[in-house]
């Protein structure tokens, strides 16, 4: 009886609304408090910055095809590499995973209706837009040429470009990170569903917790640094420039006190994504859950204590250098723990090679190279030779692109069916993942050798004997660029022509897979109660595996 009534009611009711169909006006997007809509708006804005930053990267590689500074004259080249760095770091890498995937998934994963502070979440997006708009405006006015590091006294006294405008943009944008981090910390503490204990949290959430700590504690320091830079540049108050009584090394200490932890803002969320992918696509509980969770926290803590390893040749005292080098070696250990645990998770799993998993496996290889070359740069005697060369450039691109960007793309592919309800073409997904892997290595591996040969970074012109390796690098960049453009096409295509993905296409246990795709505005129809441990793939976690097999069999029979 009851069932019959329900069916009648169901037939009469409107089709269920999801977060995408709940309101079609622009106003309903711009004034939304829904973390999922905010995440989608972040996705679009961050992609725009990634695209512009990528165009700058293309210009750099084209200029370096020949030894002379011929395509771009050196003043333009200086602006191009500066703006590449600023856009990619402050407006793409830092917000990429936290503001898009974190925003979308964190409430779903902990079983909440939204983040704890939804209005603050929307405010963070507006702040990001304000900062980004200012920077784009400055770039159109003529740009900036200080390098993304803004080293004084060049930035305070010598550069005639739009330092203040760009600085203001980054200053404003910092508050967006702080608010996002704050929101995540509060939500993880207060919004977990009944039964969702700390050690049942997906590792993605742990990684975001660690990232948020760094965002909240570190970002104010870059704000202060930019403020001091402005005081000196505009007010002529001697802080960094020795000709008016300042100390240029002070700037480097302040800058790296934020910017080294910021490196971990850029890699920890990626590690969180990879933990999800490895475990879910091997259908096996992650090996050493607690060790991976606490290694994220350890990285966040030690990450604050190693800034001086950027300053081994800057005139810092030798004994300070020794301490920083030692601590840098210590940070290597939690990173190694993660890699070993991911590898061990594969052992005796049931591994499938969907597109996201290809990214995860690629990540392990690239992060190994990025992490191990970090040891080269932590060894002081060797880094005296390597610092300020292309070895550094290659190292941080292996960590930032080989790490974070690969993880970000893996995450986008993994959660795309959840975010849009549509499935993309597996075939093109795999092709693109492999092109990106090959193109990336061809671009950046030769730069390690260039660096050891002594080619300094930020050079518009270089000695002729180094041309062959630069040609390899530029060739690789074109493959990489092509590979990165492909998802725009097939993911866009899937929005209109893609198959319906279903709520749980891979039959995975995470809470985000236990609601509709795309999820309704309030995330869950009724508040979930968690009775299972993290990463339990069997029937005991409430998954209807038998039903799913039957459905698949029917589907194959039908075709």
């Amino acid at each position, binding site marked *: 009886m009851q069932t019959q009534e329900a069916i009648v009611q169901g037939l009469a009711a409107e089709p269920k609304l999801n977060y995408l169909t709940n309101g079609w006006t622009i106003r309903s997007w711009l004034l939304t408090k829904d973390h999922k809509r905010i995440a989608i708006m972040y996705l679009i804005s961050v992609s725009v910055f990634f695209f512009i930053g990528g165009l700058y990267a293309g210009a750099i590689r084209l200029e370096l095809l020949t030894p002379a500074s011929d395509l771009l004259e050196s003043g333009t080249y200086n602006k191009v590499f500066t703006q590449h760095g600023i856009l990619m770091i402050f407006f793409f890498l830092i917000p990429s995973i936290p503001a898009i995937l974190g925003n979308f998934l964190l409430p779903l994963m902990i079983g909440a209706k939204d983040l704890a502070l939804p209005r603050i979440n929307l405010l963070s997006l507006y702040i990001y837009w304000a900062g980004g708009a200012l920077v784009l405006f400055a770039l159109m006015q003529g740009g900036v040429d200080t390098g993304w590091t803004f080293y004084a006294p060049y930035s305070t006294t010598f550069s005639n470009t739009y330092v203040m405008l760009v600085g203001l943009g980054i200053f404003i944008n910092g508050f967006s990170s702080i608010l996002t981090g704050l929101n995540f910390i509060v939500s993880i503490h207060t919004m977990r569903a009944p039964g969702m204990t700390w050690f049942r949290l997906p590792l993605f959430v742990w990684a975001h917790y660690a990232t948020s700590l760094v965002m909240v504690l570190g970002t104010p320091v870059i704000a202060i640094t930019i403020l001091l830079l402005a005081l000196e540049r505009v007010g002529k108050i001697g802080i960094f420039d020795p000709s008016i009584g300042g100390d240029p090394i002070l700037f480097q200490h302040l800058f790296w006190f934020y910017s080294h932890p910021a490196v971990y803002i850029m890699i920890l969320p990626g590690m969180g994504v990879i933990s999800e992918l490895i475990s879910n696509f091997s259908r096996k*509980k992650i090996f050493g859950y607690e060790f991976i969770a606490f290694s994220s926290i350890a990285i966040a803590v030690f990450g604050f204590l190693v800034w001086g390893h950027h300053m081994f040749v800057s005139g810092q005292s030798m004994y300070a250098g020794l301490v920083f080098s030692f601590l840098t070696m210590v940070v290597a250990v939690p990173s190694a723990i993660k890699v070993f645990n991911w590898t061990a998770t594969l052992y005796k799993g049931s591994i499938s090679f969907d597109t996201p998993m290809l990214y995860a496996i690629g990540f392990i290889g690239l992060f190994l190279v990025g992490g191990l070359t970090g040891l080269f740069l932590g060894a002081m005697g060797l880094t005296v030779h390597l610092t300020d060369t292309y070895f550094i450039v290659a190292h941080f691109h292996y960590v930032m692109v080989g790490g974070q960007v690969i993880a970000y793309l893996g995450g986008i592919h993994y959660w795309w069916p959840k975010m849009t309800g549509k499935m993309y073409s597996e075939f093109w997904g795999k092709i693109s993942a492999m092109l990106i892997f090959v193109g990336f290595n061809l671009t950046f591996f030769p730069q390690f050798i260039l660096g050891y040969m002594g080619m300094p970074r930020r050079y518009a012109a270089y000695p002729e004997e180094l041309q062959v390796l630069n040609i390899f690098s530029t060739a690789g960049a074109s493959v990489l660029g092509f590979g990165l453009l492909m998802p725009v096409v097939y993911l866009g295509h899937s929005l209109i022509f893609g198959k319906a993905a279903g709520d749980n296409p891979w039959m995975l246990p995470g809470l985000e897979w236990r609601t509709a795709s795309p999820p309704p505005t309030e995330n869950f129809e009724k508040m979930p109660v968690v009775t299972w441990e993290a990463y339990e793939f069997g029937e005991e976690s409430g998954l209807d595996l038998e039903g799913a097999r039957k459905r698949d069999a029917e589907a194959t029979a039908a075709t």
Partner: protein
Amino acid sequence: MQNTSWVPLFPEQASTFAWQVDLLYVYLIVVSVAFTIPIVAAVFFFAIKYRATEKYATPDEMHGSMVLEVAWSIIPFVISMTIFLGGAIIYYQQFTPPADSMDIYVVGKQWMWKVQHETGQREINALHVPVGRNIKLTMTTEDTLHNFDIPAFRTKADVVPGRYTYMWFNATKPGKYRLYCAEYCGLNHSGMGGWVYVMEQRDFDNWLSGNVSGQTPVEAGKDLFENKIGCASCHAGGPTQRGAKLEGIFNQDVKLVGGATVKADDNYIRNSILNPASQIVEGYQPIMPTYKGQVTEEQLNSLVAYIKSLTPNAAAGMTAPAAANTATAPATNANSTPAANKPTAKPLANSSK
């Protein structure tokens, strides 16, 4: 340069540091390969062996292993400590100039390197040095940060406005090596470079004698001190002089008003000329005006060299503030003072240690 392989892998080894840095580099490559190959092999092996054979399988759970976790925390830690120690030992040498080094002064400027030799030679975007001698560079800049970088010597150091920084090397092979500016310094950063010429001692002597172009830094400093700037009006004249006594102070501890003690090294002298009020010597009035903006970096170098020459034992090699052994340095230096400007009998004798 002489390296003619199709894709060059190593720059030339032309200093006493080169083989050590290269050895550490090779050690790190070996460590990296030793970690990478087993992990990548395991990933591929597991990925193939345990690939999904049925959909939605539920393989047995495995909770992790304390033994493994401890093992793969401790082993990387121990290996990373060997890397730390190797790096620290080489770094200590790179930034501890030997006491018997030959001094050369370097001033960076957008976008050129200006070099002053003790014998008065000056050069721009070039540095001539003899093979097998310890060479110490005392460096500063007229404008923004630069970095004096010679990849073939495997060393570099930032050049910082407002202070002196130091680097040293001992070239082992005559030849011509690239010199770069490695710290971004604006518009023509990539054009700020030149060549380091390492010459046999005899050729170097010829180069020196054929190229005299003015006073030595000490002579120039004396001229500035006594005539052009007139420091002597306060800092000379015996017991009644108004300014602090400069004879014999170099590398000695100086008591300041307020009770602090500082060592009178290059940076102290430089700072006392530019910011005299910041460090007043006990017993003197703060009456000295600042000379900031009135002396160029090169004149400062000369003044510092002259004031150093007022301390009898503090010739060329005495300027190693980073060296831990400064207390014993004057004694050893007294014996070898003249060596700085003369060819040593056995050029390579300095290279060890």
